[in-house]
């Protein structure tokens, strides 16, 4: 370390273990850093080095509490082209094309400053997609907030939705789907997860591994400023507290126009074959990007901070290295191509600068005008952060308070009152006020827009189509982390089945509380176990994802929220399924297993019921068989509509089909229906179902059931492959549900206008 002393830095100027702890490292980690830095004797890192270690060894970058769990997930499959570890995963979609996709969170920035937090969340996930050479073709978002009765919830919702729209709309990538839930445990720690999809020809994919000592490192895009300093460690790897607002300077500011130019420039650089590898700058900025490129390539990098174009003078070297200024990319270029790269940057009016070079030293060296400021083994920075075993323990006491009852209904209320209450509730009412703020059609690919089908459908060049869905019901995961997560994966697959798509791959964002607490560790490990089992069963491997931990506010942890994004393919875009009833006279049937139960349902929440300890076991084989049958029927063009029965149960699904199609339904629930709902009514039955039992049948929830409509003959054909129960007929402008047979009686009658008025409940939040 002769060069080290040449900096004139003496021992008393070096940061101490206390400084390391202030930056988020533990004392033991600090000792390990010293060891890694100096061999046997050890050497304390200087300020710049410590800043870089603290970021790369943060939870956000090192996944130190989750990596061991993530290794248990299935990541291989016949369609997988690129698995976890790259900027995004990719699956083969045929005709020489691949679909790249990934979901990522921007939770804490959004909790602090929702507009910019959400906007830069979209910007970040888009960069991940074009960093592997794919043109972004769609964005979806998954949002969680507290109850909308709280003013701050409305502020966060409005800001996040505006921010997502601002970025996606301005860059010309359609926002084609998403989901939002409102639950009290998210009040102090909202979730903003964004998923993006991209399309690339298979041979155009690029990896991020730096290669070729002597090659040049080019930073291009926006200049580097003081924004977002310490985002990864300050915001992403610690619990939020009352001083959130003070962290606003740690939130980056997005510039979608800059990103649009950066995206076009990156894709043209790849098209022309001018670069060896490409990496976006996200959390921990240059520190993370350069180190990871070096690590993946097994090389070293010399990087000169004096050559980085700066937004303001006087920035310290560590600030340059950790800045999270947005809209920047890093690439490795062969020396003879540098001039052409610069020319292309000029064409797209993005800055470009050669800031370093690839070496064979295996070391990350930071210089300023040639003077050595920091020198670290790449392997120590990227690979040597200690990984921790979780200490999971199932909590003996409930973690979450019972929801506060918000609806003026009881289990015994008449079904129409209950249906209207659920339809108008924040979790169920129409998302139109949100998705109307997003451009869902740019790029001329969107075959199914929001509320037209259970999944978004995007046309592919060869006549087929991609389908994509994102889902994750945190309340059910809180009730049962294993089964709840299996259900979330199944829900995505069911959505794909409804449009006729077969799953190809899965991405996930694990949003959890503080994993150092045993009950959170238990939620996390059970959830990952469920995720792995479900993805294996579906043959929809995990190709990428993200982990967001420490999501806790003053009142406790969020609901454990694994957000699942799933991409599938259907052979014929023209036959993509729809959710709305389409033709008067069509028969309506319930397909697949149906075992509704109220605990952890939307109705249970509205009634203020506490979460149950565990969800009912599910019959995975029966559910997958139902998916297969519905998918095949949609592909064969047999069905007019297909919709999976999810939150709010059968009655809500019926109402949604009516509203989406503008047609009513005449539903008769006969003996066969009640007999098929053993969870509600013991069989044999001699009297009418009690009101509470009717409620459970109409509004109870469980995975596996589909509501389909079509000609009688088509439904008979479907009945060969899956248990099917006739429910009634499409027609008129009213939803009638009657009890047929000996105990005949009207259970529910509501006009489409009444249903629509209730379903528009969310609109007032945006008035």
């Amino acid at each position, binding site marked *: 370390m002769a060069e080290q002393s040449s900096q004139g830095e003496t021992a008393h100027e070096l940061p101490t273990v206390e400084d390391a702890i202030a930056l988020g490292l533990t004392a033991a980690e600090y000792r390990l850093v010293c060891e890694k830095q100096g061999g046997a004797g050890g050497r304390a890192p200087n300020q710049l080095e410590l800043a870089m270690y603290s970021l790369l060894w943060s939870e956000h970058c090192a996944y130190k509490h989750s990596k061991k769990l993530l290794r248990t997930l299935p990541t291989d499959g016949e369609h997988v082209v690129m698995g976890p570890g790259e900027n995004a995963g990719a699956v083969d979609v045929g005709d020489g094309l691949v679909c790249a996709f990934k979901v990522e969170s921007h939770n804490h920035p959004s909790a602090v400053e929702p507009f910019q937090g959400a906007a830069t969340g979209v910007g970040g996930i888009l960069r991940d997609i074009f960093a592997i050479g794919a043109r972004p073709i769609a964005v979806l978002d998954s949002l969680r907030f507290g109850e909308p009765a709280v003013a701050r919830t409305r502020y966060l919702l409005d800001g996040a939705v505006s921010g997502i729209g601002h970025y996606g709309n301005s860059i010309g990538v359609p926002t084609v789907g998403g989901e939002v839930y409102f639950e009290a445990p998210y009040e102090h720690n909202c979730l903003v997860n964004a998923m993006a999809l991209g399309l690339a020809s298979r041979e155009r994919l690029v990896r991020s591994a730096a290669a070729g000592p002597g090659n040049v490192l080019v930073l291009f895009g926006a200049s580097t400023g003081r924004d977002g300093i310490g985002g990864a460690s300050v915001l992403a790897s610690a619990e939020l507290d009352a001083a959130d607002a003070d962290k606003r300077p740690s939130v980056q500011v997005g510039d979608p*126009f800059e990103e649009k130019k950066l995206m076009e420039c990156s894709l043209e650089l790849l098209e022309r074959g001018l670069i060896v590898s490409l990496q976006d700058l996200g959390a921990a900025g240059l520190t993370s990007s350069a180190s990871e490129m070096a690590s993946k390539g097994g090389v070293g990098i010399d990087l000169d901070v004096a050559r980085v174009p700066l937004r303001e003078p006087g920035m310290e070297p560590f600030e340059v290295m950790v800045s999270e200024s947005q809209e920047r990319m890093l690439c490795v270029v062969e020396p003879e191509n540098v001039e052409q790269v610069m020319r292309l940057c000029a064409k797209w009016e993005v800055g470009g600068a050669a800031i370093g070079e690839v070496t064979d030293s295996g070391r990350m060296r930071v210089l300023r005008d040639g003077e050595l400021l920091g020198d670290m083994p790449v392997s120590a920075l990227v690979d040597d952060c200690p990984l921790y075993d979780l200490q999971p323990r199932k909590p003996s006491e409930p973690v979450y308070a019972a929801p506060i009852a918000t609806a003026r209904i009881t289990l015994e209320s008449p079904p129409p009152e209950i249906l209207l209450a659920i339809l108008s509730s924040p979790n169920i009412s129409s998302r139109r006020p949100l998705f109307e703020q997003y451009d869902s059609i740019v790029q001329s690919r969107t075959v199914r827009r929001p509320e037209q089908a259970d999944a978004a459908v995007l046309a592919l060049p060869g006549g087929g189509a991609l389908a994509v869905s994102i889902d994750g019901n945190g309340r059910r995961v809180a009730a049962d982390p294993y089964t709840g997560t299996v259900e979330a994966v199944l829900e995505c697959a069911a959505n794909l089945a409804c449009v006729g798509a077969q799953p190809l791959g899965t991405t996930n964002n694990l949003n959890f509380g503080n994993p150092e607490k045993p009950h959170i560790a238990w939620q996390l490990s059970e959830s990952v176990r469920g995720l792995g089992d479900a993805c294996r069963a579906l043959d929809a491997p995990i190709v990428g994802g993200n982990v967001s931990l420490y999501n806790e506010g003053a009142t406790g942890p969020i609901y454990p929220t694994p957000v699942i994004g799933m991409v599938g393919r259907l052979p014929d875009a023209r036959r993509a399924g729809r959710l709305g009833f389409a033709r008067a006279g069509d028969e309506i049937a319930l397909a697949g297993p149906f075992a509704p139960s109220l605990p952890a349902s939307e109705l249970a929440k509205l009634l203020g019921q506490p979460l149950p300890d565990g969800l009912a076991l599910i019959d995975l084989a029966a559910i997958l068989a139902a998916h297969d049958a519905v998918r095949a029927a949609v592909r064969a063009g047999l069905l007019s509509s297909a919709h999976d029965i999810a939150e709010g149960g059968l009655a809500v699904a019926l109402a949604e089909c009516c509203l989406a199609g503008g047609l009513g339904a005449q539903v008769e629930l006969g003996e066969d229906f009640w007999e098929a709902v053993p969870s509600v009514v013991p069989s044999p039955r001699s009297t009418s179902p009690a009101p509470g039992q009717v409620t459970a049948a109409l509004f109870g929830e469980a995975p596996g059931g589909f509501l389909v409509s079509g000609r009688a003959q088509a439904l008979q054909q479907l009945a060969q492959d899956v248990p099917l129960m006739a429910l009634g007929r499409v027609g008129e402008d009213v939803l009638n549900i009657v009890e047929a047979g000996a105990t005949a009686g009207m259970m529910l009658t509501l006009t489409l206008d009444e249903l629509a008025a209730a379903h528009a409940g969310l609109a007032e939040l945006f008035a």
Partner: protein
Amino acid sequence: MKFGVLQFPGSCDDLDALAAAARVGDAELIWHADRDLHGADAIVVPGGFSYGDYLRAGAIARFSPAMESVIEFAGAGGLVLGICNGFQVLCEAHLLPGALLVNANLRFTSKQVRLEVSRPDTAFTRACGSDACLSIPAKHSWGRYHADDATLTAMDEAGQVVLRYAPGENFNGSLRDIAGVRNERGNVFGMMPHPEHAVDELIGGSSDGLAIFESIRLSVEGAIV
């Protein structure tokens, strides 16, 4: 015939407009820094955010080299269609009267709208048929058409209002429900909704927008014949 579709660095619907135009004729992109219009017979100024539009939509784009040529082209009677941001650019360039203000709801709003073709006899609507009602998506933040009362009345009298939002569809608060206008000479036309996103039943749920491109083709080829 050949359409030239301008491409600014922040254009978003440029490729969509190119593909829509290519359904009825040849079509080529024209880079914003290019003064050469490549012999195009008609120009499309597409939607998007030309140069980011942080200042005011279209305020910078009107000074671009390509737009200078488009202004000359329009002066010589060439057909120019501006869609969404393109409409904003044409207003900024004073090729069209009026201005587009922020939507009445102050939000970016995206929805399918029905449009009444109030003038089916123009170079841009002649293929629409009389009493036509088009289903076309609109998506913008700044689409509220505005001009002073005297100008609006003069435009009405001169037949310059070509498209109006059908009853109940004027979500942005445009004066007199105006969705699309032409200049006095009739060779420059701007509209906020996106005809290029309604050219394929599979994707747009409507192919009504194709009539706008088809009209331009008929006009150009009629002029040649």
